[in-house]
Every structure is written in structure tokens, then in C-alpha cells.
């Protein structure tokens, strides 16, 4: 049912543009006004969410660790698993963001004959996620050929690598295949396993279906149902230089694609897709585990009057010395 609802949602969006542009000729609305508004919602929404996160205090020092903390010099410590300083944290975050290291540790629980509980590693979700996100990034970067003039060198370079096999007309990009495979995996993963289906929400399906619809419309536009790319780029350039003009006859599929992207932009800040910003702000990942070296103060604590050991030693200096006990300062 949840799947049906999200599917209906996406199809309704497509129907809206198809009617809006196909029958009512609202090219300016769907080509300029809605994308620009969507970009604004995206920007403001992201700032709002990030600031809201940044305003919540982190009362406890909660980095997750799975390695030896830095302690005595002769005990080997795990700098990545248990980062001690800033560089350790940066390296750990980089691995997290670029390679999804936490997901790599994903485990699966199974009830085997016996009955016996078995745990094993499972890398499929990691692989599917990695494939999806990297393909998405590369596809986004490739789109810069429509966003800027002259086309930057890195776009040409990516295109060449991506179309390395030179199959078909226009040349087939490997990332197009990868993203479709990854999306299908991520989608069917939620349907096939009853456990995952049970915990899946409309929002989970909707995000996947919306992105799939964007990908499919893009692929159709590139390989099957051609649109006037020159006119499409003119439109995009004119928006980016704040003098929007809508050229004639770009093709309906382009407007469908653009409208779905606008919907994604609007949906982004108010959905779980915000994990893009959230990953940077996860305290379990971005805190260094220096709890033995530095004191983490709960930001909402009232000021606590402390009496440190040094002060104590100073206070009883003569007495300690008189008793012949060792002093830190001497």
C-alpha cells in the first residue's frame, strides 16, 4: 500500500507537468518559476535544518569507537577507529563520506536450523549505496555541460571515462546503468525482505521512486525521446545568469525531468535526504575520542565551581611536603 501511495505521488507529479506544459503551455511556469522557487526552498530549507541541528547541544561526549583509544605510548592505538585529534577525525569523516565506512560494517542476523542465531557480515547495502551515490555525483557533475559555458575540462574528462566503452548512440554512460541497478536494488531490498518491508515508510519509497523517475526521464531523453539540447542549455544558462528566456520547442520530456528535479529540491530539506548534511553533524562520528585528555563540558550545565588538583596541592603544599609525600610540581 505504501508503495502504491508513493508511486501514485510520483505519477501525479508527472501528470501535472504533462498537463501543464503539454496542454496548457505553461513553459515559463515549469521552466523558470518553479525551478527557481524550488532552488530557493532548497537553500533556505538546508540552512534552516543545519542551524537547527547546530543549536542542539551535545550533552555527552559520544563518539562511537571500535578500536584502542590512545593511552600509554607503548599501547598501539587505532587512530582511525578511535580518533584522538583533529586529523584523525577528518580522516575518519572522509572515509565515512566517500566510502561509507560504517555501512561497510553492516551485519545480518539469521535464525538457522537448530534454532541457532547466526551473525554474518553483509556488504550488499554498502555496495548498492556506494554505487548509487557515486553514480549520482558523477551524473550531477556531467550535467555541468548544460549549466556553464564554456564546458569545463573536468566534464569532458568525466564524459570520456564514463563513456569509455563507446557503446551505442549517443554513447552509453556506465553510470546510467549503475544508478539504475543500484536504485532497483535499493528499492527491491525493501520489498523482498519482510522485515525491511515492515519498517519501510512512504517516505522511503517516495524518495527512491522520485529519484528513479528523474533518472528514467533523463535516460529516455538522452537515448530515446530526444529533446533539443541546444535550446535546453539556453534556458538553463539564461536562468543562471538571471535573464530567463524560454526557447521554443525544447520537448515535453525535458520539462518533466526539470519538474521532477524541482520536486526533489523542495522535498530534500524536509526529508530523510537531509542525511547529506546530517552526516557531517553526527556527534558519534565527528567528535574526537579525547575524553581522557580533554574534558567535555555539557553546554547546558550551570557553571560548576571546581577545585582542581593543582589548586588543592597549592593549598596544602606545606602540609604535604611536611609529611614527606611527593608533590606534582616538584
Amino acid at each position: 500500500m505504501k508503495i502504491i501511495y508513493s508511486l501514485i505521488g510520483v505519477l501525479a507529479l508527472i501528470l501535472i507537468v504533462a498537463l501543464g506544459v503539454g496542454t496548457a503551455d505553461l513553459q515559463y511556469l515549469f521552466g523558470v518559476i518553479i525551478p527557481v522557487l524550488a532552488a530557493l526552498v532548497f537553500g533556505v530549507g538546508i540552512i534552516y535544518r543545519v542551524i537547527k541541528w547546530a543549536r542542539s547541544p551535545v550533552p555527552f561526549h559520544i563518539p562511537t569507537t571500535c578500536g584502542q583509544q590512545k593511552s600509554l605510548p607503548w599501547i598501539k592505538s587505532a587512530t582511525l577507529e578511535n580518533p584522538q585529534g583533529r586529523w584523525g577525525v577528518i580522516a575518519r569523516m572522509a572515509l565515512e563520506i566517500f566510502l561509507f565506512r560504517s555501512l561497510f560494517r553492516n551485519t545480518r542476523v539469521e535464525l538457522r536450523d537448530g534454532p541457532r542465531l547466526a551473525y554474518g557480515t553483509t556488504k550488499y547495502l554498502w555496495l548498492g549505496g556506494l554505487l548509487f551515490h557515486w553514480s549520482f555525483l558523477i551524473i550531477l557533475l556531467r550535467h555541468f555541460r548544460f549549466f556553464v559555458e564554456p564546458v569545463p575540462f573536468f566534464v569532458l574528462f568525466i564524459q570520456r571515462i564514463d563513456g569509455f566503452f563507446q557503446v551505442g548512440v549517443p554513447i552509453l554512460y556506465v553510470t546510467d546503468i549503475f544508478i539504475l541497478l543500484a536504485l532497483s536494488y535499493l528499492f527491491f531490498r525493501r520489498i523482498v525482505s519482510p522485515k525491511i518491508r515492515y519498517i519501510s515508510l512512504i517516505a522511503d519509497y517516495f524518495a527512491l521512486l522520485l529519484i528513479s523517475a528523474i533518472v528514467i526521464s533523463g535516460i529516455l531523453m538522452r537515448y530515446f525521446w530526444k529533446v533539443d539540447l541546444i535550446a535546453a542549455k539556453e534556458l538553463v544558462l539564461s536562468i543562471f545568469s538571471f535573464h530567463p528566456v524560454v526557447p521554443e520547442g525544447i520537448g515535453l520530456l525535458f520539462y518533466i525531468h526539470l519538474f521532477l528535479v524541482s520536486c526533489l529540491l523542495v522535498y530534500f530539506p524536509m526529508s530523510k535526504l537531509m542525511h547529506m548534511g546530517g552526516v557531517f553533524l553526527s556527534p558519534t562520528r565527528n567528535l574526537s575520542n579525547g575524553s581522557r585528555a580533554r574534558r567535555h563540558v555539557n553546554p547546558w550545565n550551570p557553571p560548576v565551581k571546581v577545585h582542581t588538583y593543582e589548586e588543592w596541592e597549592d593549598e596544602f603544599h606545606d602540609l604535604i611536603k611536611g609529611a614527606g609525600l611527593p608533590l606534582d610540581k616538584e
Partner: protein
Amino acid sequence: MYDSGKIIIGLLLFFGLIASPIWYNLASGKGSYKPDIKIVTTEKQCVAPTPYMRTSHMDLVYSWRDLVVRENHRSYNSFTGRQYDMSLTGTCLNCHSNKTEFCDKCHSFVGEAPFCWDCHVVPKEGN
């Protein structure tokens, strides 16, 4: 707000990147550029209707190639009833003899560089 320095730098970086097309087009000054392709032939019509050519000429030349190379079929019956020899150099570039001002201008606008000319001859350009 906690860690406001880092948060603000992060947000600025993100929006700087997201808005990079705006900066880039400002810097290159080509935000309103559009390729003005020159048609040098005296003919009135392309081998297929112009809207079709504009979006789908690649399908056409590839189908020509397959017909010629795989099926040794060299004659194309155009929509006007005129016969064309299916040849990249001999037909397309016969009418569109200004490849750099025509094909290339469009293609570089969308970052495309068909590798056909690795093998196929480009006739000497006369405008």
C-alpha cells in the same frame, strides 16, 4: 548555535559550490551565449525535417553508417523524395561544408566531440 565558525564555513562552502554555475558564467561572461550556426548551402532543406535534424541527426548518421557498412545499402530516400548517397563526408559535409562553424559549434556548446573525424575525412573548408 554551537561550533558556529565551522557551521558557517561549511554552509558557505556548500552554497559556494552549489551556486558555482552562477560564478562560472559570470567569470566567463558567456551566460547569454548561444551558438549561431551558419548554414552555407543554397539548398532549402536538410535531408530530414529541421526539428528532427536538430534533435536526432545522430540517430540518422548512425543508421546511415549501419546501412552502409553492414548492409551495403547506400541510397537514402529523403522525406521530400530526393535520393541522397548515405555518406558523412560526401553528403552532410557537402552541404554543411563549414564543419567548424556548424557541427563543431553546436557540439562544443554541449561538450560533445564526436570521434568520427578520426577516420572520416573533413573536406577543406570554404565558407
